[in-house]
């Protein structure tokens, strides 16, 4: 066991962080609101660095890394508040040829589609597999999003589309995992912003970070973030161990979602399934709550300034809110885990030989 980042993984994180600092500084990110969240030029640069083809095998022209690495990269993207349909575009790589790809779960009623103006295609998950809907087929009505950098549109009824995969289990788990990675990054970014402000802002003749009310709030932010991060990294390792990089798992047991029940098939054993569900849904809950709480605390640490549009605190919080209702509510994920609480809880942890 070596659950620390390898040198290559550290270099990967550093590379993506540098890329974000260079090309996705906060002013650039805020400016993306004017082009519906995605600038094709910048998006292309992201694609060129291999962000979206990370888990595509080298022989198919991808980077050939694993889910652990994909999580690390997405964590950095979240930390830098990079907008866009990141999850869908990564999962679509090697499956469809489009460059900007949304991902959504099919439900009975109208659907809220993220980044509707900029998509080439939308992939739709349902109990029968994954379906590609061409952007031209999508008619939507704009709605006011909670996050200025996650525009949404209301589609009365999703077209059926063309089937591109017969399995959903792996897709759904990966989408949950990548969303969680973005949220761990958000939790980190919000904590960093709050700590920097606490160090610099003076009140009553000292930096506010000297007051326990602020210091302890920052400590709690860090704790949530670290626990969520551990959970995320664990999920990445479990994904690599059970699904392998680039290999979609065979259809698998149920993942409760809003609209559909996704069946588990035969390729994954009971044990792997149990492990995967607990790891992925666990990361989901912890990452979403860390991002939400750290976003709120970041606003609070900034005092009145935190309530202004000008300060970035709200952007972390709003992105967290935009990501949370994707791919199963937190309540569903909690129920999913509860069903996996077993007679021998340690069997789960002690078998990774």
């Amino acid at each position, binding site marked *: 066991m070596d659950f620390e980042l390898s040198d290559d993984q550290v270099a990967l994180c550093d590379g993506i962080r540098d890329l974000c600092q260079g090309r996705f500084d906060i002013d650039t990110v805020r400016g993306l609101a004017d082009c519906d969240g995605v600038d094709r030029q910048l998006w292309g640069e992201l694609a060129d660095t291999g962000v979206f083809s990370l888990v595509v095998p080298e022989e198919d022209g991808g980077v050939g890394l694993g889910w652990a690495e994909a999580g690390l990269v997405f964590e950095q993207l979240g930390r830098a508040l990079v907008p866009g349909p990141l999850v869908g575009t990564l999962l679509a790589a090697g499956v469809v040829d489009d460059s900007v790809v949304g991902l959504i779960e099919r*439900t009975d009623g109208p659907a*809220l589609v*993220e980044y509707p103006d900029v998509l080439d295609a939308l992939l739709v998950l349902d109990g029968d597999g994954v379906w590609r809907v061409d952007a031209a087929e999508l008619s939507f009505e704009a*709605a*006011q*999003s*909670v996050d200025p950098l*996650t525009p*949404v549109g*209301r589609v009365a009824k999703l077209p059926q589309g063309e089937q591109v995969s017969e399995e959903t289990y792996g897709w759904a788990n990966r989408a949950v995992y990548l969303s969680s990675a973005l949220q761990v990054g958000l939790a980190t970014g919000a904590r960093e912003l709050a700590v920097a402000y606490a160090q610099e*802002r*003076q*009140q*009553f003749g000292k930096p506010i970070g000297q*007051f326990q*009310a*602020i210091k302890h709030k920052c400590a709690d932010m860090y704790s949530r973030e670290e626990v969520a991060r551990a959970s995320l990294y664990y999920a990445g390792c479990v994904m690599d161990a059970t699904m392998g990089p680039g290999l979609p798992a065979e259809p698998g047991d149920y993942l409760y979602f*809003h609209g559909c029940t996704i069946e588990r098939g035969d390729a994954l054993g009971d044990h792997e399934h149990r492990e995967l569900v607990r790891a992925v849904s666990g990361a989901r809950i912890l990452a979403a709550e860390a991002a939400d709480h750290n976003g*709120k605390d970041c*606003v*609070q640490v900034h*005092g*009145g*300034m*935190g*309530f*202004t*549009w*000008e300060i970035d*605190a*709200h952007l972390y*919080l*709003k992105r967290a*809110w*935009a990501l*949370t*209702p*994707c791919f199963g*509510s*937190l*309540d569903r994920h909690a129920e999913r885990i509860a069903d996996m609480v077993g007679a021998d809880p340690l069997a789960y942890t002690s078998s990774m030989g």
Partner: protein
Amino acid sequence: MDIRLSAEEVAFRDELRAWLGEALPTLGNPPGSDDWAARREWDMGWQRKLYDAGYAGINWPSEFGGRGSTPTEHLIFLEETTRMGAPYVGMNFVAQLHAGPTLILEATAEQQARHLPAMLKGEEVWCQGFSEPNAGSDLASLSTRAIRDGDHYVVTGQKIWTSFGHVADYCELLVRTDPEAPKHRGITWLICPMDLPGIEVRPITTVAGSSEFCEVFFDEVRIPVENRVGDENDGWRVAMVTFSFERGTAFISELLGTMNQLAEMAELARSIPRNGSTAWDDDEIRREIGRLQAEYDALWALTKRVVSQAQRTGMPGPGGSVFKLYYADVKKRMADLAHRMLERNALVLAEDSGDEQTGGDMVASRLYVLSLSIAAGTSEIQRNIIGERILGLPKER
């Protein structure tokens, strides 16, 4: 201990109800949130109606044109107006609740005659110039400078969180007249006309996208010395006397409005599909609605206690800081519950039309509640106040 209204109070309530029943249907629709001219007209028009009906300055002494009501009558007034959907005090807030009371207690007869009747009739919009970007919670460390030059103070500096600054006629302005004195002792209270040269007002956009708050910049603004209220360097005390008008009524409209929201949320829960049934059938959601109602009912009871104390002693009880601290937490829980119920619909904010089915106004409310633990003294400051002033714990040094 009696929560029942007295015969006089019932009479007050019934008369008010009757008047509201007649007055409200004549109002028409409120203006859009960005139409400031129309909003001013709406708010001032309502104030004028209150004036004509004898409800203006409800807590002002009658010798200054107010109604001179008891704290309980004030509570009844707020309860009934909220309940029947009357306009909120809006941009009359500072004139009615801060500047007016201060002038009553501290201003000269000339200053009073100039402003109090106009405030009551809805002819003057006031704003507050207390907060500064570098002062924050440490309000008394304000640094906007006023230098005496003959018959004028020459004011340079910056204020922030000035609600309706871009609409206001006057500003109650705190300035530093003695930078050498201890921070509470070098402050002066001025009436500042907002049309003086050198004043620039810039709206602040909040996280909710609204812009009722402003920054106000003062660049060598010349304010006549006759506009000073109280003595030079005695402005901190002058600013504090406003609080002796406080009677525990500050959050009544807010709380009662929130209880209405909770009832709407319970309605909504019965119609939102969840788990093959509705959100109402989710044990966790239904119970949380019950718990929130319990806490709001308790806060309403606390309010009645504070108001009763104000009625008995002239000073509200220590419940004000408790209310603010506690309420901010409970209302955040309600906002979180809304998101939990709305699931994917929580992605969307309400359009102005108010699409009730999707609960988008609840999402907007989730942004608004972030300010509850910040504005008018952060929750951290409230905890210091309770710890030190009520419980007698030692101050930090």
